């Protein structure tokens, strides 16, 4: 990791939830449920006959860092896509700070605007970065702040520069994504997600498309996000060492279920499930 990143500004991100979401929090219908940042209750998801998730229960506290690990196709990514409303669950309920992102109070499917309001508290970073190729780095960063949060251009650019400094890429402010390395693109994508000050950040295999030496610089950025206590992280990753280092809890997936979860040290040194042991043996011996 060669680039020396400056994180002196790091304290400024994700520290203040967007005003809309704090209102939403205050009006959460059930204060008992509101203790979870995000909660999956008996969630199933099928694509046709293929059952990707089966009766999933998972709760994440505000500020908690949870790593989802397990074999490919075990449903980890689907969990994040459901949280971001990129998929709809086939059954069960998902609540963000106590508010369902699936149903309204009457049990009917949420309207688009209700859904948009609640999921505003989530942000997501993707395996393939998904930067907008026709926009510069700066334009990528300020698009959502100026349109969704209705910030002024100056205000958005100022905070964009802060986040770029945080990920060590303020010199690339006018570059296009195609002019950046994969690792740089992913760091921009992280900055683009953070600029909206999510309270829950979903990281979907963010280093899987990167060479190992580029993965390192991205993981460094995530380490620094993790030190910020306020944001909950839900991390799908194949980097076991990273998962162990960064998370408060690890959930092991297999065939659409969580077969085991617990503190990283416990999972890695003394797993209860035979399948966890077999999985870890496979991935750690490489």
């Amino acid at each position, binding site marked *: 990791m060669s680039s020396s990143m400056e994180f002196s500004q790091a304290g400024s991100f994700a520290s203040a939830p967007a005003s809309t979401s704090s209102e939403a929090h205050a009006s959460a219908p059930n204060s008992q449920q509101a203790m979870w940042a995000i909660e999956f209750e008996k969630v199933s998801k099928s694509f046709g006959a293929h059952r990707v998730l089966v009766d999933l229960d998972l709760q994440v506290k505000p500020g908690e860092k949870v790593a989802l690990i397990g074999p490919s196709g075990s449903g980890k990514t689907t969990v994040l896509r459901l949280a971001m409303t990129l998929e709809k669950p086939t059954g069960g309920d998902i609540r963000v700070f106590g508010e369902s992102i699936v149903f309204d109070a009457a049990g009917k499917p949420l309207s688009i605007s209700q859904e*948009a309001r609640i999921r505003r508290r989530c942000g997501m970073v*993707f395996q*393939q970065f*998904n930067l*907008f190729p026709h926009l510069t780095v700066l334009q990528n960063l300020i*698009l*959502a702040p100026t349109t969704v949060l209705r910030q002024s251009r100056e205000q958005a650019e100022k905070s964009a520069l802060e986040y770029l400094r945080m990920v060590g890429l303020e010199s690339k402010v006018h570059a296009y994504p195609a002019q950046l390395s994969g690792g740089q693109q992913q760091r921009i994508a992280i900055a683009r997600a953070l600029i909206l000050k999510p309270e829950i950040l979903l990281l979907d295999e963010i280093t899987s498309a990167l060479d190992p030496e580029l993965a390192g610089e991205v993981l460094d950025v995530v380490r620094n996000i993790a030190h910020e206590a306020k944001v909950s992280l839900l991390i799908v990753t194949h980097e076991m060492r990273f998962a162990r280092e960064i998370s408060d809890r690890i959930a092991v997936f297999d065939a659409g279920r969580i077969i085991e979860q617990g503190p990283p040290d416990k999972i890695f040194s003394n797993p209860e499930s035979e399948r966890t042991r077999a999985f870890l043996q496979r991935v750690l011996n490489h």
Partner: protein
Amino acid sequence: MTWDWSFVVKILPQLMDGVWYTILVTIASSAIALIGGLLLAILESVSTTLGRSFVRFWLELFRGVPTLVLLYFAFYVLPEAGVTLPAIPIGIVVLGVVYAAYCSEVYRGSLITIPSELRDACVALHLSSFITWQRVLVPLMIKRSIPALLNYVLGMFRETAVLFAIGVPVLMGEANVVGYENFRYLEPFTVAGVIYIGMNLPFLYLLSRFKDKHV
């Protein structure tokens, strides 16, 4: 049959009138085709199954019927229904609508090639669907469509010649008129052909530039 330069000089001003009308019609029809095609592609993408089949019906109609049939229909049949328009607007609208159908296919193709992951990113950034279209999808659609769209503009430019059939004084029409007024067709049609080729050149230059850029 001998080539008469003095006749060429004599008819050139009238042919140049035709050139201006050709340019006017091409620009106006292109505007209809490029904007209309984009709107059709968006409409088809966002509408319900029923709306989509409605759009598709019109697309297939305008792509499937020869332009000349549509021109004659608009020029000779619509007046019987009480809609009488001058030839130039009819020509512009018919050409524009026909090529809007072609252009919408180009835009649609570009839209399909935009990775779904980019739409996921728009959701994850909480962009409204209007902003998603306005700031992400439409710019990408246009950017990816430019080489193919230029081809259609070029095609439209050439096809302005058929508008002479309803009396629009495009270059082809003017050549025809000076031909039968003077009983000499060699010079008018030869000069018209040379002018058409000459006017093609900027398009061909643009096209080659975009192809270099986008390959």
